[in-house]
């Protein structure tokens, strides 16, 4: 507690200011933002490796007489299992930390939101997989909606039902429960990176390249890991100052 927070006398204004400072101190003790960000960042970068290892390029029949090239990448199990474990580990981390520090945790809404939205994303992914990936020229079956895979709206929905929904929106909830403006900014930045169209051939990487997913995972992964680093350093600085 710094001397600057000690009021010269006890007016109601100063009492409220003192209570505000106490509240901030409790919030600081409750926060452990760096941990979920570290897990999510590592998981996102791990997606690059999974995409590379599962890369398959097929030539399939299509209206074009020369045939069409179909690229398949990624595992339908990686994100549901990885994110599920990340949310579980985050809950355990916060509960253990709360016991050690002697102050309750507010992480439950974050974990429950994350798991619920992960279930939505996993169910969507399962639906698309079971109803078959669209062949060139065919519509994409998404919960019974037959969407044009090439349309910007479909691409936006595809981006939304990924990291934005399963990672970004829960981060907004975490920012709310931890009353952290810094995390709110980070979550908005993450959502922007996830939702903005990357464009084809981004950074000189062809869409048929085994590394085509590199920018799609590297950018949000870097945002999350840099956020984790920033929050860890801030927490360490606060710990030394206390």
């Amino acid at each position: 507690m710094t001397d600057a927070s000690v009021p010269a006398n006890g007016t109601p204004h100063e009492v409220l200011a003192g209570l505000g400072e106490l509240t901030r101190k409790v919030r600081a003790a409750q926060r452990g933002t760096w941990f979920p960000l570290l897990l999510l960042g590592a998981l996102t970068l791990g997606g690059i490796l999974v995409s590379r290892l599962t890369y398959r390029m097929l030539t399939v029949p299509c209206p074009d007489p020369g045939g069409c090239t179909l690229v398949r990448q990624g595992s339908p199990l990686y994100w549901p299992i990885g994110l599920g474990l990340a949310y579980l580990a985050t809950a355990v981390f916060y509960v253990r930390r709360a016991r050690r520090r002697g102050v309750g945790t507010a992480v439950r809404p974050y974990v429950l939101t994350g798991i619920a939205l992960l279930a939505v994303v996993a169910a969507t992914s399962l639906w698309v997989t079971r109803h078959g990936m669209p062949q060139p020229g065919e519509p994409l079956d998404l919960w019974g909606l037959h969407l044009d895979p090439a349309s910007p709206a479909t691409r936006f929905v595809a981006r939304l039902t990924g990291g934005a929904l399963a990672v970004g929106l829960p981060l907004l909830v975490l920012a709310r429960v931890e009353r952290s403006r810094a995390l709110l900014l980070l979550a908005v930045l993450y959502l922007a990176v996830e939702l903005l169209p990357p464009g084809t051939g981004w950074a000189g990487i062809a869409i048929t390249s085994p590394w085509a997913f590199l920018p799609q995972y590297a950018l949000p992964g870097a945002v999350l890991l840099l956020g984790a680093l920033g929050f860890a350093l801030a927490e360490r600085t606060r710990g030394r100052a206390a």
Partner: protein
Amino acid sequence: MTNDQPAQHPVTAQHPVTAQHPATAQHPVTALDDVVHQRVRLGILTVAHQARRVEFGFLRTALGLTAGNLSQHLTVLEKAGLIAVEKGYEGRRARTWLTLTPDGDRALRAEVAQLKRLIHEFEQEGPAPAS
């Protein structure tokens, strides 16, 4: 309250607005609850409100109190039904956790509202005219 506490939090210092005067019957100060308004107890309730569940040691450090002093205030709040105290063990360490009851939550909100009203009235009235 003892005088040998080296690092008191602002809320643990004595507050001058606890006494009620007959002439101030309609003044917000009359709505302040003495049990809640005492600054240590106000601090305890504030921490418990934010933390949901808080351990004795954390409170003692956060408020800069001695164990005996904090225990006395916790007893007052528990008897008033504003907090619930739960004793247990974590490993071989005895730990005391406390949570805010619904009555405690209401009392804290009412207290903060009265303090804000007091500030508002003070600012509306402005300084007293010079005699």
